[in-house]
């Protein structure tokens, strides 16, 4: 597909990078020549220097023939204008980043309709949703849901002395009497899709899938605490913190936000009367101790500076805060945080790029069994995809044991009429099912791609 990306900041670059990996033809638009230089040097894309709201620039980027435009400049208005122009010029799908709080759900719906936007994205809100999910199940480093919560995928790190270390995967069901499936294991930098004879070690990071109730039971049995985080401390009071706090407060948690900027703190206090807002430097140990960091159930470090977030997280983890989540902007810093032993790292722009990759793949495959949801798991080294199944003699109606799956692909679940089936050899996929597939190193676009 031909994709135009307007605005090559953090989000733009993350989208560009994953779209380039997907093999799309990309034109990058940015007003800064330096940014264009950097982008064209790093990826095989064409660069156009100029503003996305300039019709000549869009013509040069060949908006008339493009399949999709993603606008992620700093300004919401420029994004909307660029999407509108491109749409009128003939770009088939327009994706617009809108994040200003002024654009409420209601006005956004109006804008979307009137400007003909295919999709609006709000990275802060999406990231906040992800953080909220993790805080719901604090023992998970990452949690994703499929098919309207009929299936969950949870990533858990196996710490030193974990119950699971030394266990063979084929024994798990017998020992714990729960139906969970270990669908991916990361050992060091390698990610594998394990078979029954695989033996877990401490230090591994595993991804398990099951229906949500089973996951809770399993985590309790293997001795990982499973209590919803009640007292949450948020360091850094940006927009994402606002969205997160709002959701947490609505679900009955107590929230304490530490914000450096006085005006920012006041604004938050106005917007969230139920939250405790502290004006202070969250990167200082004393401030955190004073506000009772040790007694919190969870800490979310989401300030603007990655390094500070990492340091605060390490401090909190050292004090024994049960759940520590670190927000990281630069992807290489996420790697650093991982090496430092931080378990839950969230990178907002990757959440956006995953969503767009899923969107693009679904567009490319509107005829077959298209991708309903896509999550990158294990630091992007594997993918979990949900497909809507349509008739295809290669996959539907064939017992699984007769199907020859490609290597490093696992069929994690079949969801039929809101019932989740952990598939065995005799099960078949039927049209109308939803199927969740875990894949490492394969780019799946259609469900039929899983058979070799």
């Amino acid at each position, binding site marked *: 597909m031909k994709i135009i990306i307007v605005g090559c900041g953090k989000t733009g670059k993350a989208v560009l990078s994953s779209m380039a990996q997907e093999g799309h033809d990309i034109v990058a638009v940015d007003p800064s020549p330096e940014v264009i230089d950097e982008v064209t040097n*790093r990826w*095989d894309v064409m660069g156009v220097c100029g503003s996305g709201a300039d019709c000549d620039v869009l013509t040069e980027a060949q908006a008339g023939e493009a399949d999709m435009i993603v606008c992620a400049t700093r300004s919401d208005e420029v994004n909307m204008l660029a999407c509108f122009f491109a749409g009128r010029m003939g770009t088939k799908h327009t994706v617009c980043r809108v994040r200003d709080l002024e654009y409420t759900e209601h006005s956004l719906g109006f804008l979307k309709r009137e400007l003909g936007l295919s999709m609006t994205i709000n990275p802060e809100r999406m990231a906040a949703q992800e953080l909220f999910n993790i805080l719901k199940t604090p023992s998970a480093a990452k949690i994703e849901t499929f098919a309207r919560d009929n299936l969950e995928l949870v990533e858990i790190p196996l710490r030193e002395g974990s119950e699971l270390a030394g266990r063979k995967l084929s024994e798990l069901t017998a020992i714990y009497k729960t139906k969970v499936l270990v669908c991916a294991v990361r050992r060091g930098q390698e990610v594998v899709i394990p078979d029954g004879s695989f033996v877990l070690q401490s230090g591994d990071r595993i991804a398990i899938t099951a229906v949500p109730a089973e996951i809770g039971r399993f985590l309790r049995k293997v001795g990982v605490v499973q209590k919803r985080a009640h007292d949450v401390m948020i360091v850094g009071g940006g927009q994402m913190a606002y969205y997160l706090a709002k959701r947490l407060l609505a679900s009955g948690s107590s929230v304490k936000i530490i914000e450096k900027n006085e005006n920012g703190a006041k604004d938050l206090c106005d917007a969230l009367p139920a939250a405790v807002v502290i004006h202070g430097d969250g990167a200082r140990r004393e401030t955190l101790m004073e506000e009772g960091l040790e007694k919190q159930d969870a800490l979310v470090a989401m300030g603007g500076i990655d390094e500070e977030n990492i340091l605060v997280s390490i401090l909190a983890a050292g004090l024994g805060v049960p759940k520590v989540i670190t927000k990281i902007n630069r992807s290489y810093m996420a790697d650093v945080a991982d090496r430092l032993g931080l378990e839950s790292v969230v990178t907002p722009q990757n959440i956006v790029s995953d969503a767009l990759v899923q969107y693009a793949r679904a567009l490319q495959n509107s005829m077959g069994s298209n991708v309903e949801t896509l999550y990158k798991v294990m630091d992007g080294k594997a993918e979990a995809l949900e497909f809507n199944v349509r008739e295809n003699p290669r996959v539907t109606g064939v017992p699984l044991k007769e199907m020859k799956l490609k290597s490093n692909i696992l069929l994690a679940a079949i969801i039929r009429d809101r019932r989740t089936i952990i598939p065995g050899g005799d099960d078949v996929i039927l049209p109308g099912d939803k199927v969740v597939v875990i894949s490492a190193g394969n780019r799946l676009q259609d469900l039929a791609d899983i058979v070799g």
Partner: protein
Amino acid sequence: MNKRMVLHIIGQIVALEAALLALPLIISLIYGDGDAVCFLVTVAVALAAGGALIFFSRPKSRRIYAREGFVTVAGAWILLSAIGALPFVISGQIPSYIDAFFETVSGFTTTGASILRDVGALTHGIAFWRSFTHWSGGMGVLVLVMAIAPGADGNFIHVMRAEVPGPSVGKLVPRVRETAKILYLIYIAMTALEILLLLAGGMPLFDSVVHAFGTAGTGGFGIRPDSIAGYNAYLQWVITAFMMLFGVNFNLYYFLLTKRAGTALKSRELWVYFGIFFVSAGVITASIFPTYGSLGEAARAASFQTASIMSTTGFTTADYSLWSGTAKSILLLLMFIGACAGSTAGGIKVSRVILLFKNIRAELRKMLHPRSVTTVRFEGKSVSERMLDGVKVYLAVYILIFLIGFFILSLDRFDFETNFSAVASCFNNIGPAFGAAGPAHNYADFSVLSKLTLSACMLLGRLEIYPLLLALTPATWTRK
């Protein structure tokens, strides 16, 4: 530096040369001149060298940066010429290896300077190979590798930037590989069109192909001692037109193909390029009219020579060494200007010249109004300081290298005019110069040192100095 990857790419290029050599091999088998063996041996050598490089380099990472791009291009061009010289030596038609190397460098860099005393004596295979080096060197051998080699990804923009002439290299389409393919398709189509037009004018097939190669690459190797002079007026006009066309930025042809003629015609460089051509050809016509007597003939000779020099091709229809001082000095100036960026031609390039003049104007205005804010605009866009600095530094390095080359040549026994014009001609990839290196003469009598210097000048000129210069800079090779 990722040396393994550099060697790997160079290996691919040498292997490609083996494939290129298959063409003259076929030609020599068709004509049966008995020079097939020399091509067979060279193909074997190229395959062995390329295969060994590909096999033993085993790059751990495919990631390359600007420095690898420069070093790859420099290394590849030298190795290509070294291997490409073998057929001349093995067949015995150019016994000295230095001479053969000079001839091959001259071919790949699309210079067209020759050390052959009698071009007509060459066998068909060798003559074909000589002109074919022009064609493959014109658009760039590495660009060809990018168009066809598997695994050419975004990193290769560094290689392309180092090989394609001009102050800045843009892509036509999002992918490097597609861009390279489009460029080669336009190139092939235009070459084919020229062959057809030459055939229509009664030129024999072999001659048409060889001359089309020479024009397309803006090279200038002919197969007759008098170059193009012996062909009829129609053929000379066809070649004149195509010399100019191959000096145009190829991106403009792509715009024409994609029905964006408006964008193509807005190109300032294009207008200036043709403007310089018509003015120069007009003045030369007036200046040589007395010696020719007929306006038609004077105009034909003047246009042909102006196009030939300006597009840095180097075909000749007349011995312009005998022309008036005015005509000669215009031709000498044109040697330096060259044609458009992004074409197959050499020289400083019209776009750089325009930028320099605009820069001078901005600087003068700044002197008159010290507080004024000035920007330089070109092709409808404001030009960054960095690019202007690049152009200025390029000119400075260009002059420096020119002077060094000129000094080394003056150690030889020729006169001032010959030395000066020979360096200008080789550095700008034209071919024939003035004086003892003029159209009626050749480069055979220069000393070995001079020949090597001129070879270096040709490579520096074709690759626009930096790749070779950087490959010779120690800082490129240190780990820091």
